[in-house]
């Protein structure tokens, strides 16, 4: 699955870090880093984190892989 965090919005509340520590980490006190392409097995965790983010900074992909179809 694919995610992106709008770090302009993110205020380092770390809710996501508690809920999905393998995906979201704090580098220092406030600087959030994250895995933009976590395993599908973590979807539930990530969705919980996205829902819990007080500023709704976590954007989770809403498309199935088949619909992404990119011709190269």
């Amino acid at each position, binding site marked *: 699955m*694919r*995610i*992106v965090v*709008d*770090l*302009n919005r*993110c*205020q*380092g509340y770390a809710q996501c870090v508690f809920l999905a520590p393998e995906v979201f980490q704090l*580098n*220092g*006190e*406030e*600087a*959030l*880093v*994250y*895995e*933009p*392409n976590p395993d599908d097995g973590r979807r539930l965790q990530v969705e919980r984190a996205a829902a819990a983010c007080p500023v709704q900074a976590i*954007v*989770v*992909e*809403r*498309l199935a892989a088949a*619909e*992404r179809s*990119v*011709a*190269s």
Partner: protein
Amino acid sequence: MTVAATLAELVRDFRANGRIVIVGASLAGLRGAEALRAEGFTGPLTIIGDEPYEPYDRPPLSKQVLKGWVPADHTALPRLRALDAQWRLGVAATGLDRATKHVLLADGEQVPYDRLLIATGTRARPWPNPDEAALEGVYTLRSRDDAAGLQRALAARPSRVLVIGAGFIGSEAASVCRDLDIPVTVAERGSAPLVGALGGVIGEIAAQMQRDHGVDLRCGVGVSSLEGDAGGHVRRAHLSDGTTVAADVVLASLGSIRNVEWLEGSGLAAGFWGVGCDAGGRAFDINGVATDSVYVAGDVARAPHVLYEYQFLAMEHWDNAVLGAQAAAHNMVNLEPHYRPNLLLPGFWSGQFGVNIKSVGVPPFGDEIVFTQGSVKDRRFAAAYGRRGRIVAAVTFNHGRWLEYYGRLIQESAPFPPPPPGWDRPDDMKPMPADFPEPGVPTAVPDVVLTGHDPNERRAEFRPRR
């Protein structure tokens, strides 16, 4: 039919059958395409990108990817809706014919459009000497491939890394080197890191932060040449102060070049600072007249900003790409008076040396700075920038939660120094000169630049053709 009804019919018809082409398949291109569909555009949509990859996110490249936590190919951007677009990836646009409304591609094909969105962004400024730039171990950092290469080089534990240019990307890379316990030298021509973007007062703090983390920081020096070994691998650098640095990985982080060359001859206001456009993303032609069919968004755009005396701003910021593309997309499928501006207050974040740096507004627009909250010693503070008695920007170090407060003050043109938020007061609240380099003093280039004509500086001369 009334005129209004005819116009409404035209808009309906365009949304159903118009042909839209987007050049640049990255953040602004993707978010623009999604916004077009969200706005009800159902006509044919073509997205052209010279990179072989589908749109990916760049900020992680200099952070989690360099560190080795996240592979470079894990940065593809999430898709927010089905696009039903024709993707032309791995092929560059090489020209624009506005008379016949065609985009020319490197493979010889011509793609017709009714409306065009230019989102070609910027590229890394390469090390100026091509022979030296070609040495193995010399990198720039802009693309997924750059990041993958540099990450591999760091993982091989070089004896020393040399970072040339201490802007945001150079400073972030230096920070990662220290996280990985790799010796790193940073050479910056300006007086301190980040000085172009945040000024000398904050630059001094950034410098101290680098030194505290064991960076060998050299300011006020340039790198004059790079030297390789017999195998063509970079081994050392000669500095303008006569010293040498032995390094087997070199990152040239010298700012960026706007991808406008393909627009030569198109008659658009495209140049060194990007493509001029109005606040709604409508590109200007070479005479400064807004076009109806060509739009611009993201790093390559520069537009007048109402909060900054209508001076032109070029912003290399993530949220400017997102919001600029969304405003342009809206305007592409609507008519005046329903146009929407991209009145984004510029904002930027950076993570380095364990500190979250954020700014809002345009710091280099200000000439004074005042610490308003927190403690510099603890690397946890907020500071505001002012110009002529009003607040124009703010920066926070590990104090991001307060940014919104300052953003509001900036939008209201509140007085400078701003009223103290009354929480976490610093010891010293006296405004002082923000200490930005004089124009023309070489530093790592700031990532928001005022590119307009300042009536106080009569430097340009207009000579109409006789």
